[in-house]
């Protein structure tokens, strides 16, 4: 028997345990809206029993530890999915920006209020150029038609220049994102190494470090949103982190860091700073930025450059053989080499009367050269994979649209998976107010019962003392 004083002591320990349990519940409720928090529970254990002739007699309850509800597998899955989502989000954002700059939309035309292609894009400007050649080829065309043609061609060249510059700015912004994400990732790696140390220190003496583990998991997921990571947990609770096969955090040491470097031409790639090896990133916003920049965005820029380059070559090849007033020949209609620098010849821009539209040095009314330029619009060009200029551009726009649609689909799927994983984790680690309140009542009642026990034992002690007095 533990006796009345033993019972009193048991009740006091019970009061303490129930109170601590309510404190844990209070902490859970306080963190109900903290996404990084994992639900905690006070683990209670029956105290060491007392052997009596009648058998084993319980001696109350002890609070053993505060347990955190975390599933390492789900945490890992969520980190992986965060990498996938981060990569796709980054790609989608960059490609949609490029799409905006192309300015090709279906809209209701201002003239007829019927659906039509955009009047601001390269497609319309290309059509306008060839129509301009055709107009100059018409009988009786004169200076006004030539001035309009030159102005239209300048508009097309400006559109090419503008889109090329804007796509360049998307690349610049992706390069800046890569640098910023690398800097932020390095900070995460440093924090994770520090947290490893703190967690190991706290748990070395048998304690728990739940809030530190929460903080570390949040850092790991933040890091995963920027790059794909591989993690492994050491016996002391430290988490090692590898990126692209290079160990970045080993125990308490931030053994290596990521470094963004210019691989030439402003193309930023990522390598391990100490190891010096290029990191083959497959997930996260850094990989997404690199993928968008070196994939679809580069394809888009190359397509536009090829289109502009062929336009310059084909138009000039015909134009240079034409004749202007006074039999002048040999000039160029366009100058430049690609979309970035295509421009109407400065001489022609300054004086449209010198336009070499005639096929004859002496026949002022000949239109064979300009008619041939007009016919270029519906001719298949070898350098454009046997497509017309407009057809080739339409293919480019379609490719970009497909790329965005694919990324958007994948992103939708990835977000669904992330949501499902999040739900699974919530069901384990999330704080449920109803559950906490129910538990609170249980602990409250237990506390009341223990208090009542003290009161009862107190009365019993008084009885005993009264007996002694009597």
């Amino acid at each position: 028997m533990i006796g009345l004083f033993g019972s009193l002591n048991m009740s006091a320990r019970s009061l303490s345990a129930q109170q601590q349990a309510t404190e844990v519940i209070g902490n859970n409720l306080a963190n109900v809206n903290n996404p990084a928090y994992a639900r905690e529970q006070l683990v209670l254990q029956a105290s060491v029993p007392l052997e009596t002739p009648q058998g084993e007699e319980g001696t109350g309850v002890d609070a053993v530890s505060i347990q955190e509800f975390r599933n390492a597998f789900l945490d890992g899955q969520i980190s992986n999915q965060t990498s996938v989502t981060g990569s796709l989000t980054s790609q989608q954002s960059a490609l949609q920006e490029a799409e905006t700059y192309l300015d090709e939309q279906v809209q209701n035309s201002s003239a007829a209020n019927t659906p039509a292609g955009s009047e601001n894009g390269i497609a319309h400007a290309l059509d306008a150029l060839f129509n301009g050649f055709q107009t100059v080829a018409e009988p009786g065309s004169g200076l006004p038609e030539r001035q309009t043609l030159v102005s239209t061609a300048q508009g097309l060249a400006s559109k090419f220049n503008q889109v090329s510059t804007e796509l360049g700015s998307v690349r610049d912004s992706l390069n800046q994102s890569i640098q910023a994400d690398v800097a932020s990732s390095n900070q995460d790696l440093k924090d994770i190494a520090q947290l490893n140390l703190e967690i190991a220190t706290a748990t070395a003496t048998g304690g728990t470090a739940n809030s530190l583990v929460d903080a570390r998991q949040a850092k790991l997921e933040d890091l995963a949103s920027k790059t794909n990571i591989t993690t492994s947990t050491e016996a002391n609770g430290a988490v090692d982190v590898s990126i692209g096969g290079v160990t970045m955090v080993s125990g308490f040491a931030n053994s290596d860091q990521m470094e963004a470097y210019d691989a030439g031409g402003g193309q930023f790639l990522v390598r391990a700073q100490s190891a010096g090896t290029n990191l083959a990133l497959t997930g996260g916003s850094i990989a997404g930025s690199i993928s968008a920049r070196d994939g679809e965005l580069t394809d888009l820029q190359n397509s536009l450059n090829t289109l502009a380059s062929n336009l310059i070559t084909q138009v000039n090849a015909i134009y240079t053989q034409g004749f202007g007033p006074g039999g002048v020949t040999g000039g160029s209609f366009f100058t430049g080499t690609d979309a970035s620098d295509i421009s109407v010849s400065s001489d022609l821009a300054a004086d449209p009367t010198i336009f070499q539209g005639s096929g004859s040095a002496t026949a002022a009314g000949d239109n064979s050269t300009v008619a041939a330029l007009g016919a270029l619009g519906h001719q298949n060009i070898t350098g454009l994979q046997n497509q017309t200029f407009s057809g080739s551009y339409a293919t480019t726009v379609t490719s970009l649209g497909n790329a965005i649609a694919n990324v958007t689909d994948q992103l939708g799927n990835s977000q669904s998976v992330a949501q499902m994983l999040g739900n699974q984790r919530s069901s384990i680690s999330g704080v449920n107010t109803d559950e906490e309140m129910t538990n609170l009542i249980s602990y409250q009642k237990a506390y009341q019962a223990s208090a009542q026990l003290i009161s009862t034992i107190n009365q019993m002690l008084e009885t005993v003392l009264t007996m002694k007095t009597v």
Partner: protein
Amino acid sequence: MFTNNFLPNLNTLEQTQNQLQGQASSGLNMTLPEDNPLTMGKVLNLQSEVDANTQYQQNITQLTSSATDVSNILSSLQPLIAQASTIAVGAGNLATQGNLPNAASDVGSLVKQILALANSKDAKGNYIFGGTQNDQPPFVATTDADNNITGVTYQGNTSVLSSEIAPNLSMSAQIPGGNTTGTGPQGLLLDSRSGTDVFSHLIALQQNLSSGNLSAITSTDIPAISADDDHVISQMSGNGVVQSALESASNSTTLQGTALSGQISTATSADLAQTLTKLSQTQTAYQAAMQSGVLIMQLSILQYIH
């Protein structure tokens, strides 16, 4: 966990609602390439055809205007040749009446009128019958002391301006004033293949009338001028064919333009009945989601603990 699902679902419904509302207000089922890449590619190609079609229509209008100019001149010119032919045929009677000098003078006047018509300009100031050498009068006359035209030479060329009226299909409404090369389009007043030489034949007639050389008129001038008249009538007929072809091309181009715009419309127009039904369904789902969400979120065990 409830809010984890509730908010994304609300967002999805709101996005769908916005998208459908946009479709209903614009009448378009897509806007950006990413909405429907394949259709966007089609629209760009169709729009390019629409733009080209508009240009072809403009070319046809311009060619029709040129053909009308030519037709008007031919309508004035042919009766002058016919009149000369009539004078030639009636030369015998005129001789009897002693009117040959007057007749010669009349023919001289006809030559001058025909020369004026042959050197006509269009509205832009270009010579209509000079071929592509249209910046100078195509026919140049030499005159004697009495200001009679004694010879006319053609200084235009035999090329004609042509414009596209459809992909790879060009047409011209122009007729060169002369062509003695034996190739290319026939000349109007001077043509080696048909033997037409209106000015030479009329000047010969004028000279034969002046000299009273009736036999030459009968044997040479009358057949030659008659053949010239036939040639000009044949050119008028050719011009009529060109105008008819242009009218037909214009109708066809207009129909094609309508069809192309229709294809763009079909590919991109929203089915309003379907869109509005979906919008209504989505709105109902959105309202239901919000209402039920609020009800569920308000439920708490705290309400039952006292």
